[in-house]
């Protein structure tokens, strides 16, 4: 039992995935069928979440399964994030046409989640590569899931091409690492990378290309807006949160396990990339008229903010990066959830589709207010403390200029987030007849929105417990 316990979340996820696909043919087609599968998945995920939270808590970090997996707080925390994000995404699936009728959609979601869970805890190059692929392949399919919709197909195909390409580059980097050291275990590799010589430079760039794609760092961000725009909205939300967080988990582990000796060089490169990522993401977001594309660019910028915490390369830095991801996952899922509802009702993702929303559904508008202000970094929402900690970590490690860059960027961000609120609260629908065009929220989505809004407020106000969780994870790495 002891050996199976650390991978209990993965085992349970796999069981759930099997159950979903096996149950599907036995269900009668129709309305009930849809909501049954959805709720089955969601309840299963929530049970997994609770079980993991209480029974899979790691003690001192240990390597298990022949060094394939490291059982530590980083993996534990990120697994919780992924399972939670998957549960929320499954709730959003239930409200999306085509996704809710097919058991495959839930299956793919669950398989991708298994991959992410392994990504966060794998301690071996082989395991890491396999888990990255396990994550990516289902996501390619999900992005292109709406087979009748050209944009969705384009999105899936583009994601596949970019993903396969960078994954090949990443694999090349891994093979170099193995070739020059003779080991694939991350925690044995560290002694081989003490100097920033030409080999280390080469590997750094190869790895960066692969991982920067995952978290959409500049200059590997080009795929994000196109993929998010075409993919079904809940899938885009999942990509921008869980998948990105998984990338960060890998970056954090690689940096601390393999490259601590040359962290100064890495940090400088990452600082430059973070600056460019934030700036490019925010500036292009200013010009967006499509909310999904806007959120895509904004999520590029947010990867830059979280990267500030990584650059700081200190326990506080890592803690704040993880904390940032918590706040970001909750907020961005919320934002994409709202975009999904508006998209379903108005059939458009254009900002003008949000005209008069506050008169059409005032509760939904308040949720949007929470989401966008939290993204902008306003208290009492999660985004504020997250940014505060990230900047604080940067200042602590002497990266004052980076903190200033981050702050200037958050001002740009504030501008376009407030702009959306203007559409929601100020502008009217063309016929000024909001009263007769209410926006209804279905039950599963309403549930997800309530959970997420509460979460965003909770992270922003009751700070201490989450922070101590994140700092456990950080201390396990250093």
């Amino acid at each position, binding site marked *: 039992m002891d050996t199976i316990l650390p991978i209990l979340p993965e085992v349970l996820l796999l069981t759930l995935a099997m159950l979903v696909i096996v149950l599907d043919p036995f269900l009668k087609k129709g309305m009930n069928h849809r909501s049954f599968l959805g709720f089955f998945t969601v309840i299963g995920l929530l049970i997994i979440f609770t079980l993991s939270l209480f029974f899979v808590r790691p003690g001192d970090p240990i390597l298990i399964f022949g060094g394939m997996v490291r059982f530590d707080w980083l993996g534990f925390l990120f697994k919780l994030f992924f399972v939670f994000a998957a549960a929320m995404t499954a709730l959003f699936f239930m409200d999306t046409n085509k996704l809710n009728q097919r058991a495959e959609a839930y299956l793919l979601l669950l398989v991708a989640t298994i991959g992410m869970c392994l990504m966060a805890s794998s301690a071996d190059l082989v395991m890491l590569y396999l888990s990255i692929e396990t994550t990516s392949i289902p996501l390619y399919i999900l992005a292109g899931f709406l087979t009748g919709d050209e944009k969705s197909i384009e999105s899936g195909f583009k994601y596949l091409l970019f993903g396969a390409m960078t994954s090949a580059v990443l694999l090349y980097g891994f093979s170099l690492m193995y070739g020059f050291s003779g080991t694939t275990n991350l925690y044995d590799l560290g002694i081989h990378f003490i100097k920033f010589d030409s080999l280390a430079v080469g590997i750094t760039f190869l790895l960066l290309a692969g991982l920067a794609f995952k978290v959409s760092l500049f200059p590997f961000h080009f795929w994000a807006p196109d993929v998010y725009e075409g993919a079904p909205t809940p899938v885009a939300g999942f990509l921008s949160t869980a998948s990105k967080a998984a990338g960060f988990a890998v970056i954090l582990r690689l940096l601390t396990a393999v490259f601590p000796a040359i962290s100064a060089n890495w940090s400088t490169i990452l600082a430059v990339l973070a600056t460019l990522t934030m700036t490019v993401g925010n500036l292009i977001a200013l010009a967006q008229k499509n909310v999904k594309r806007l959120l895509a660019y904004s999520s590029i910028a947010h990867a830059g903010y979280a990267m500030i915490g990584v650059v700081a390369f200190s326990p506080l830095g890592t803690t704040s990066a993880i904390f940032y991801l918590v706040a970001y996952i909750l907020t961005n899922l919320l934002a994409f959830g709202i975009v999904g509802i508006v998209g379903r009702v108005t059939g458009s993702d254009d900002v003008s589709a949000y005209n008069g929303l506050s*008169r059409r559904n005032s509760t939904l508008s308040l949720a949007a207010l929470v989401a966008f202000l939290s993204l902008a970094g306003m208290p009492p929402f999660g985004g504020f403390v997250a940014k*505060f900690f990230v900047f604080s970590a940067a*200042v602590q490690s002497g990266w004052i200029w980076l903190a200033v860059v981050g702050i200037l960027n958050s*001002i740009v961000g504030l501008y376009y987030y407030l702009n959306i609120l203007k559409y929601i609260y100020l502008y009217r629908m063309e016929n000024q007849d909001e009263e007769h065009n209410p926006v209804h929220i279905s039950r599963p989505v309403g549930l997800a929105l309530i959970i997420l809004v509460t979460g965003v407020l909770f992270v922003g106000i009751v700070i201490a417990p989450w922070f101590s969780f994140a700092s456990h994870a950080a201390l396990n790495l250093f």
Partner: protein
Amino acid sequence: MQFPFLSIIVFTPMVAALVLLMIKPEQKKAIRVIALTAALLALTLSIWVYFAYDKTSAGYQFIEKYTWMPMLGISLHFGVDGLSVPLVLLTGIVMVTGVMISWGIDDRPREFFAFLFILASGVFGVFASLDLFMLFFFYEIAVFPMFLLIVIWGWIKTREYAAMKLTLYLFIGSVISMIGALVMFWSSGANTFDMLILETVKFTPDFQKIWFLPVFLGFAVLGGIFPFHNWSPDGHVAAPTAVSMFHAGVLMKLGAFAALRVGIMLLPVGAKFWAPLIMGLALVNIVYGAFIASVQTDFKYVIGFSSVSHMGLVMMGFATLKPEGLFGAGVQMFSHGIMTALFFAAVGMVYDRAHTRDIPKLGGMIKPLPLVGIGVIIGSLVSMGMPGFSGFVAEFPIFMGVWKTQWVVAVIAAISIVVTASYVLLVIRRVFFGKIPDEFEGHIIPINLLDKIALVMLMALMVGIGLFPALMVPWVQSGVQHVLILLGGV
């Protein structure tokens, strides 16, 4: 364990906002009643705190401290001193009068009052917080509802522009100060955001000289300091009446107060080094603001620029770093808050009826709106610093302090009094006296009871403090005492 007055004052509006958001939007009557009740509760408690404050001892009182985040030394730490306790009272008064005057808002009143109360909560929080992190937390809470309030209920012509401009200015200011605060936190070595402890940390003089300016100016943006005052007249004019009252009456004090508390009190050596510059900027504020105000034709812009001018006096009082100047600035914050709240209330009442704020088009308003006219006249006397009104208690000591520091500045600044007198009197004559234009004859409906109560409350305070300065002087003096100890000279 004493009764937690301050945290109740801070969180009452926040809770009220949440309650309001739970009510059905159609129940407008219930929404207004709840809003007024919450505002009255906050006011009652702040009056209690004001009078229960022990003015014989310098330092903080009503202290409450709850651990919030021990890892970084962040706690929920409330407390007031003689400088902040009048401002807490001011916020309570403006909140109540603001609700009374906004009674007639018919477009989404639920959201209006909820946002207004979130704003009020933020303002109370900044005045009462003794923790640097908390101060930023509440400071930002006070900034963002402003955007929504102006953009949704503001003056249709400029609201989008003004709201965005205001929010960006204030946000930029606050985040720049935040960097300064973070640097202070890490270099203090105390691992705490507690301002009582940070006050005792002796930062090196070089450090203070580098970081004072960004911290002070970052906050002073909200205090309307030149050359960052630009957002304020536009914001005042575009905002709906109650929001203008809050904005000019309370929010600008928030900036000045935070600049004092974080800038001057935590970095006193830096303050001494940069005081001449601050004084210079404040002088521009005072004189330039007054001249610009005198050429405006829009009633609300006149008041907007006069606010810039008067807030300059507060900054100038700070920059003297002398007992008289600081004391005057403390009283001026309160007096100016009440005065502009009254001005904006009056402008709003005239505009709601005449549908124009263009001064040449108005006239003879004293007949249909006698109380409004009297209010504006009293407000004008206050703004000129006439003895017998609260403005005198505030401005005279400021000039004394400035005279002691640099008499030339005092002489130049005194020009503004003359200019102020000229434009306020001119505005009164044109708007309230003379012949009433034909189009308004018989169309100006009188103000209602709630409006009257609000106006009388504000007027009574200005006259009351003018005639009985003892109602405010000891409080502010005890607060100034503490600042002087930190500045190293008594």
